C-alpha cells in the first residue's frame, strides 16, 4: 500500500535548486533506500519528509509530499504532528545529556502521550526491548545516556523514536559513525522494524542498500533517476547512470 508520495516536489536553499521535480511512491512497511553521491540531495529529501528542513533559513519548497493521503506541506497541517508521525534517526547519535530513561520519557511527557509513571516506565521498557537494548541497560536506566557506546546510543535514538509511536521512520545514514559489527547489528534492527513501520533509509553504502532494502531510489544531482526494486537496481538497472553508479564507475 502507498504510504508516502512525492508530487513534483522541489526544494531550494536560497537560489540553489536542490531537489528537482521529485516524484516517488514509497510503499507501506517496506524499507526504501535512497542512494546517490554526496551532495545529491538525498538527505535534503529525507528531511523534507518530516519537515525538519523547515528550520533551515532560506529554505523553500513547492510541490507536495503526501503521507497517508494528506499533503504535509498544506498550510493547515500542524508541523509537530507530522514529526510525531514521521520519526527520524540521524547520522550521529544525538541523545540529550540526561539519563537513558529521561531520553525516552522526555518525548512522552512533553507530547502528553503518557502521564503517569507506570505507563511511562512500560513504554520505556517496551521501546528499549524493541531495539534490543533493555537487557544491556536495565540496571543503569538513570545513568547518563552519553556513557553508552555509539552503537547503544544509536539504538537508544531509535527507541526514543519508537516510543512516540510513529508510522514512518527515516534513517539518515544511521551507521556512518559505527564500525562493521555495530553496523551489522543496526541493519538487523532496521530489517526487524519493517514489520511495523515504513522505513526510508538514506545511505552512502551501496552494499547496505542492497542488503536490507526492498526498493531503491538512485538520486543524482537532485533528481531521482531511477526507482525500482532493489534487486532490479543492483542487477539489471534500466538507466546507464544507475549502472555506472552502483558499479562504482560513476563520474560527475
Amino acid at each position, binding site marked *: 500500500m502507498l504510504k508516502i508520495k512525492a508530487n513534483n516536489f522541489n526544494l531550494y536553499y536560497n537560489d540553489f535548486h536542490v531537489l528537482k521535480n521529485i516524484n516517488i511512491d514509497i510503499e507501506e512497511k517496506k524499507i526504501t533506500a535512497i542512494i546517490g553521491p554526496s551532495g545529491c540531495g538525498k538527505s535534503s529529501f529525507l528531511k523534507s519528509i*518530516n519537515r*525538519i528542513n523547515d*528550520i533551515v*533559513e532560506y529554505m523553500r519548497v513547492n510541490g507536495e509530499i503526501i503521507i497517508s493521503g494528506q499533503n504535509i506541506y498544506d498550510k493547515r497541517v500542524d508541523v*509537530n*504532528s*507530522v*514529526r*510525531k*508521525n514521521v*520519526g*527520524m534517526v*540521524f547520522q*550521529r547519535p*544525538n*541523545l*540529550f*545529556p540526561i539519563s537513558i530513561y529521561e531520553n525516552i520519557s*522526555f*518525548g512522552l511527557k*512533553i*507530547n502528553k502521550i503518557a502521564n503517569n509513571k507506570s505507563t511511562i516506565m512500560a513504554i520505556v521498557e517496551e521501546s528499549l526491548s524493541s531495539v534490543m537494548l533493555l537487557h544491556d541497560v536495565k540496571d543503569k536506566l538513570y545513568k*547518563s545516556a*552519553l556513557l553508552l557506546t555509539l552503537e547503544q546510543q544509536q539504538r537508544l*535514538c531509535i527507541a*526514543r*523514536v519508537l516510543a*512516540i509511536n510513529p508510522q514512518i521512520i527515516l534513517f539518515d545514514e544511521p551507521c556512518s559513525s559505527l564500525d562493521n559489527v555495530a553496523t551489522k547489528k543496526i541493519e538487523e534492527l532496521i530489517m526487524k522494524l519493517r514489520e511495523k513501520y515504513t522505513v526510508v533509509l538514506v545511505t552512502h553504502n551501496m552494499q547496505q542498500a542492497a542488503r536490507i532494502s526492498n526498493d531503491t531510489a538512485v538520486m543524482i544531482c537532485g533528481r531521482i533517476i531511477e526507482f525500482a526494486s532493489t534487486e532490479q537496481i543492483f542487477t539489471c538497472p534500466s538507466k546507464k547512470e544507475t549502472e555506472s553508479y552502483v558499479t562504482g564507475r560513476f563520474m560527475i
Partner: protein
Amino acid sequence: MIKLNSKFSQKIPFFFLYAATILTIIPVITIIFVIIKNGLSAINWEFLTSMPRDGMRAGGIFPAILGTFFIILLTIIFVFPIGICAAIYLNEYAKNNLLTRVINLAIINLAGIPSVVYGLFGLGVFVIFFKLGVSVVSGALTLSIMELPVVITTTRSALNSVPYSFREASLSLGISRWLTIRHIVLPNAVPGILTGSILSIARISGETAPVLFTASALYVSYLPHSMFDQVMILPYHLYVISTQVPNVRKDMIYATAFVLLILVLGISCIAIVARIYFKRRKKW
C-alpha cells in the same frame, strides 16, 4: 643532520610570555595588599552598620552599602528578564533580515558607549523628562540600559553553546519550537547565562558614572525607604571622602575601598563557584 636543541632560543620567548603574565598580576596584588594593609584596621561592626557622622569624618558607611545594594537589586529586576528574553528571541526566533542586523549592530555599539554618556542620558531621560528625580529607580534604569547589551551578548553566547543537534533531536520528536527552547535549550544554557549574569552584576556594582547624576547624593541623613529616594552609594562615597571632604582619616577611606572591593569580588566568587558547579554537571 640533527641539530642540537638550542635551549636559548626557546627561553627568550618563554621569558617574555612569563614576564607579561607576571606584569598583569602585580598591580592587582599590590592594590589588594595596599587596601587591606591600610583599611583593615578601620573595619568593625560600627563602621559597617552605622550612619556617617561629623561630616563623614567618623561613623560608618551603612547608607552607602544599603544604597549600592538597592540599586543592584533593582537593576537585576529590570535588566535580566528583558535581556534574557531579547537574547532568546534574537538567537532562536529572529530571521536574519535587515531589522535583525540593525538590532545586532545597535547592541554592539551600545556596548561601546562610555559609561558617563549613559549617566548623562539617564539624567536627561529618567531624572528630568520622566520626572523620576535623582533616585534609586533612575539609577537602576540607567544601569539597566548600560548593561542590557552585555546581558544580551552573554546570554546569546550561552544559548549558542547548546549543540544544534539537541534542537534537531527535540524538534524531530514533534516537540514544538517553544517547548524545545523551554525544556532543552534553556536548561542546557543556564550555566552560561548564570555566569554571564553574575559577572554583569559585579560590573554594575562597581559602576560610578551612570549613577553619579541619576541616583547618588553626597550625603543623605536617612536610610532609603522607597525607590524614589536619593541614596548614597559606595563608589561615589569613596570619591567624596577622598577628594571633597578635608581631614578624613586615611584608614576610613581605605576601609570603604575594601568594602567595595569585597562586594565586587564576592559577587564574582559566586560566579566562579556557579561555573565550577555547572561545569561538573555539564555532560557534553
